């Protein structure tokens, strides 16, 4: 960290960050039923990481969220999305087509498919925004 750091910013960002991340996980895992979803949850998780970086300094945060594995997680999630889309193209004729079930209301098939997409997209967005901000916040390159 550079310059002055106030106790208020320190304490608030450190105490608030885990709850913000928890809310992000809630948004991702309940995105099929309530407002929210992969993108929103991912951005909220990334803002938790940014809060941690503001409170603890980017070096400590990078020890907890190392850039290389997070980067790898983003790449794997994007590849997973493409693979799921390709499987849907092969099995049901449309890109990202639902291959788990035809999709009558009340079955678990559509919900499982949307849930899977939400989780993949949440990991992708959260890891991507976190990596962008952690690289921006590096002390001296």
């Amino acid at each position, binding site marked *: 960290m550079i310059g002055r750091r106030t106790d208020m910013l320190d304490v608030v960002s450190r105490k608030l960050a885990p709850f913000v991340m928890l809310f992000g996980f809630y948004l991702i895992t309940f995105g099929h039923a309530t*407002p929210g979803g992969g993108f*929103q949850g991912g*951005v909220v998780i990334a*803002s938790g990481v940014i809060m941690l*970086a503001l409170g603890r300094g980017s070096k400590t945060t990078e020890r907890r969220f190392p850039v290389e594995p997070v980067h790898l997680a983003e790449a794997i999630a994007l590849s997973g999305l493409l693979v799921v889309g390709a499987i849907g193209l092969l099995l049901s004729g449309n890109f990202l087509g639902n291959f788990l079930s035809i999709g009558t209301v009340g079955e678990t098939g559509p919900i499982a498919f949307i849930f899977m997409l939400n989780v993949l997209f949440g990991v992708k967005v959260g890891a991507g925004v976190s990596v962008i901000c952690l690289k921006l*916040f590096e002390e001296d390159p």
Partner: protein
Amino acid sequence: MTELLLGLQVIVAIACLWMKKPLAAVILLGAFSLLGALLFYHLDAPDVALTEAAVGAGVTALIFVWFIHRTRGGEHQE
């Protein structure tokens, strides 16, 4: 309600332009995003409201605060 929120957004945006200190301008920008989120919620778009609140008031404001911190409060160096 929609007109009220839009009018408040215009007022906050003009106040944001008039601010001398960068930190005050960033805080007003966060207030602008929050009013936008309220507007989206009022217009029955809770998804968009959530995105606006997370990205506009959360991530953008935090990044701006960080860079004001990095540039020593945005004061001009002689």
